[in-house]
């Protein structure tokens, strides 16, 4: 599963943004309602005041109800400059005394006797707010109720409401933006341990099998714990495997040594020529068995070392000299000229001393066993950006068509009897693990056959 979901940050940010947007919408809706209510309340007072003044100016004269429009009422309503005003005065008999007869907010005007009644209606195609007030009028014909209905278009109150709403919207938007930025910062900050853990894991050496030592928030603990659990298990496995190889090495080598020891004790002088021939074969086979066993065990050990060993700077001259001294036996044929030449400059490569020595030793061993007839030269040199260990011998060399194959395990060449075993395989695998490679140079008129191992040099810091 390499597909991954969007980042935690964007997921959190998205959710927070949705919550903030919903909150803002709610607030704005509420603000709109309040603004409308406030505007209505403010202008309703004016309307009511005007209606009261108009009602006050109803007088009974000559037993007739008369109405004089008080200018102050219109001044009051004039505060809403752009709104138009309509009114209607109804006498106790229900006739329109003056004004627009077609303003009728409700059929039953008598409801306003208790308290003024406000209503919204459409009048002449525009939205108007009406108030109906009642006034008891006493004339000779008795007491009756006169009504004053004042209507006002709603432009001013709508303007007020929308202004109030706009301000609220600006406020809410500013707050939401602040909250969003704040949340983003908070999320970034809170997610930092996740990034740090990621960095620690990225920067980790893959060979490092020590547990993670990061301090992490509780939520990340299960991850770190399970990573550590896994690392521990792997470490345990590698250790177990290495111990197993070491133990089996001991178990196999001890009887093998005993076998060679006992074979070496056989007194050849008392044997018949046939038996002597058989003994020689036993001796050769035992030596072969010993060599393969060593190679197998060393191969296993070297390859598994790379699972757990951290690479360190190694001097190529040193390791080559060690391999040379360890590999060339004292009992070598005295007519063989064997030499080692170190490089004049210090060649440092990043590697594992033991694996590298084993790799070089195997190449030298192979040359001694299958190549060299009278001369073997081991050299450490610089080759451009590479450190090179060269093992040259005066033997016939390996034919070019076999070069690609001899580095395979147990490859049997057609020209040579038997298999070259694991020697080149070990050398090649070690070289590969260290970012280098094994190579061959064919025998030419002047130059002997060479096997070389190239490894990248460590860039030296000046100073």
């Amino acid at each position: 599963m390499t597909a991954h979901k969007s980042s935690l940050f964007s997921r959190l940010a998205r959710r927070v943004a949705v919550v903030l947007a919903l909150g803002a919408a709610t607030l704005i809706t509420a603000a709109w309602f309040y603004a409308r209510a406030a505007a209505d309340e403010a202008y309703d007072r004016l309307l009511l005041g005007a209606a009261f003044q108009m009602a006050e100016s109803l007088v009974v004269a000559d037993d007739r109800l008369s109405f004089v429009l008080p200018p102050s009422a219109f001044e009051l309503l004039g505060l809403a400059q752009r709104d138009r005003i309509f009114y209607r005065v109804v006498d106790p008999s229900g006739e329109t005394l003056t004004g627009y007869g077609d303003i009728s907010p409700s059929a039953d005007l008598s409801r306003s006797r208790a308290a003024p009644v406000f209503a919204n209606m459409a009048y002449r195609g525009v939205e108007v707010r009406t108030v109906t007030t009642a006034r008891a009028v006493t004339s000779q014909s008795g007491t009756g109720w006169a009504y004053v209905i004042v209507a006002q278009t709603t432009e001013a109150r709508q303007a007020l409401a929308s202004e109030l709403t706009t301000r609220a919207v600006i406020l809410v938007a500013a707050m939401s933006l602040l909250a969003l930025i704040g949340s983003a910062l908070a999320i970034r900050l809170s997610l930092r341990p996740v990034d740090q853990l990621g960095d620690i894991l990225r920067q980790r050496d893959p060979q490092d099998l020590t547990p993670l030592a990061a301090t992490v928030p509780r939520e990340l603990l299960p991850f770190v714990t399970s990573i550590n659990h896994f690392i521990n298990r792997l470490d345990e496995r590698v250790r177990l495997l290495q111990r197993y190889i070491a133990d089996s090495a001991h178990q196999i080598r001890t009887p093998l040594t005993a076998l060679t020891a006992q074979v070496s004790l056989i007194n050849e002088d008392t044997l018949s020529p046939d038996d002597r021939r058989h003994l020689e074969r036993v001796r050769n086979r035992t030596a072969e068995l010993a060599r393969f066993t060593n190679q197998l065990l060393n191969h296993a050990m070297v390859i598994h070392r790379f699972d757990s060993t951290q690479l360190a700077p190694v001097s190529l001259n040193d390791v080559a000299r060690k391999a040379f001294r360890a590999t060339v036996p004292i009992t070598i044929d005295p007519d063989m000229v064997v030499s080692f030449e170190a490089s004049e400059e210090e060649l440092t490569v990043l590697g594992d001393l033991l694996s590298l020595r084993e790799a070089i030793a195997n190449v030298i061993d192979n040359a001694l066993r299958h190549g060299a007839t009278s001369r073997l030269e081991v050299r450490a040199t610089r080759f451009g950006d590479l450190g090179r260990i060269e093992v040259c011998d005066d033997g016939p060399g390996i034919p070019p068509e076999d070069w690609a194959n001899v580095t395979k395990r147990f490859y049997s060449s057609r020209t040579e009897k038997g298999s070259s075993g694991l020697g080149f395989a070990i050398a090649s695998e070690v070289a590969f693990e260290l970012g280098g490679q094994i190579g061959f140079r064919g025998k030419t008129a002047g130059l002997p056959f060479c096997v070389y191992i190239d490894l990248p040099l460590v860039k030296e810091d000046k100073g």
Partner: protein
Amino acid sequence: MRILLVEDTHDVGEAICRRFQQTGHTVDWETDGSAASDILAYTEYDLVILDVMLPGLDGFSILRKLRQSKSGVPVLVLTARSEIDDRVGALDLGADDYLMKPFDFRELEARARVLLRRRSGGEATNVIACGDISLDRTNRSVMVGKREVQLKRREMTLLEILASRPGKVFSKEELLDQLFGFDEAAGANAIELYIGRLRKKLEGAKARIVTLRGVGYQLVSDDGP
């Protein structure tokens, strides 16, 4: 020479004992680590051949104790474990040489001989040089220019004799005496053989072995006297 062998595998111990006894050495054979350590505390040996995996006390511990008591006896470690670290560990702890089991018995004998000789030799630390050949008597190593050339024991001795006085002519008899001593019977042909091998191994050096027919041999530097 007196050798202590510490080896718990009977078949191996028997063969090593027999081999060294055949060449005239006295071999004490111990199979238990702690017993061997006790013996080493009060007995002088010329060489200790030490297995690593032992009952009682392991080879490394014996070696460590031995070196802590300032004993300089040469120690050759035999190891059957595949942890390659063992070899390095052994050398770090003061082993003089190691062999990985299974080993070639001739190689064991040869290495033991080198260690025994180093013990009895005890030469001063010095380097003999002639031309671009230099011979380090302590490490018994020979450099030709930048090349380190591996010489056999007799070749080394021969070069040592010739290089000790460059230009001097050594007669065959003189060399024969110094190379083989009086107890070994060797013909004049042997000298020719060793001179031949030595010449081959010093090829490319700025010094030559010159044959003066009927007189002897001398080492001559190309750089002048």
